[in-house]
């Protein structure tokens, strides 16, 4: 536990220090390069805004209409039976298919359940350890001639759901 806290406390300052020091020792004009990259980051963040507005608006319609609640209550009973908290059902349903929609649900739920509760930690672990696999595969294979992706979708979904289910148990232990 002490080791885990040490790792999580030191990871961010450690990575920052290593990058800055390594760049400086290599003779890179560190601050100039940092500003150059930071400017690109700012552009990226602004470019995300229209997508965020569109997706969060649609998610809020779904939430306010009660549809997500209806779908969630349909699957939550079977999920509870195998030890999966029903609060995680919306994320489990949507995470592999839409990155921005799951991000919207995630930030809403974190406010509702609290970030430091068991549910909050499980949701954070699911979001941090999984990827929008369908989007990723579509983008990568879309750049090639491939029409038949064979077992790519199946293997990615297995990988995604194994990670998400593992999150529920890992957060009980760590």
């Amino acid at each position, binding site marked *: 536990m002490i080791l*885990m806290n040490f790792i999580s406390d030191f*990871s961010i300052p450690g990575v920052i220090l290593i990058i800055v020091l390594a760049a400086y020792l290599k003779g890179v004009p560190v601050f100039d390069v940092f500003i150059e990259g930071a400017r690109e980051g700012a552009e990226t963040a602004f470019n995300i805004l229209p997508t965020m507005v569109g997706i969060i608006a649609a998610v809020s319609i779904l939430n306010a209409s*009660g549809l997500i609640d209806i779908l969630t209550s349909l699957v939550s009973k079977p999920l509870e039976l195998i030890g999966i908290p029903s609060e995680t059902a919306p994320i489990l349903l949507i995470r592999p298919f839409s990155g921005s929609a799951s991000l919207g649900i995630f930030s809403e739920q974190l406010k509702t359940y609290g970030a430091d509760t068991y549910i909050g930690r499980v949701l954070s672990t699911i979001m941090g*350890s999984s990827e929008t696999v369908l989007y990723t595969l579509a983008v990568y294979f879309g750049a090639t001639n491939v029409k038949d992706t064979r077992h790519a979708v199946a293997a990615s979904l297995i990988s995604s759901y194994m990670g998400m289910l593992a999150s529920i148990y890992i957060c009980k232990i760590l």
Partner: protein
Amino acid sequence: MLNIIWVIMIFAGVITGILTGRMSEISDAVLESCINSVNLVITMLGSMCLWSGLMKAAQKAGLVNSLAKLLKGIFRFLFPGIPKDHPANGAIAMSISADLLGLGNAATPLGIMAMKELSKVNNDSTVASNAMVMFGVVNAACIQLIPSTVLIIRQQAGSSNPSSVIPCIWVASFISLVSGITAAKFLEKFNLPKG
């Protein structure tokens, strides 16, 4: 893809709203969501600048290339079909390193470049090779050392220790990665390329 998803979400939401009589709640929620999305982007803006800037420095310092060299051994196992000195090796290493470091939007172009190199090894066929599927799976399951987006949102939600979930995320990502590799290695035996 998102065109269809968006229409379905709004259509299903509004129809359900009519049935459950929650149209006024929907009106309020839509207007409020615009404010929420701007808040979310404003919160992310500073951190996006910080990490994009640091990653640029890491690239210039050659840290990304050093990571590429470290990963060479694993490639022999994951992508046995790629010739030893083919540029695909470097491209994959760059892409996976970018994923590890959480380069986000820089990782996507690198991943596309790597997939194109793998496609060349596969004679630009319309059927994916084992290596291409494996790369797609590994890339989608890849461990991110610092999941910055999640940390920012946790902080925004009032967490007293946003980074406390990092060890959990590493373990879960590792399980996801191992399951993905196992599934890809297993399924490739049953899902042979035709022709």
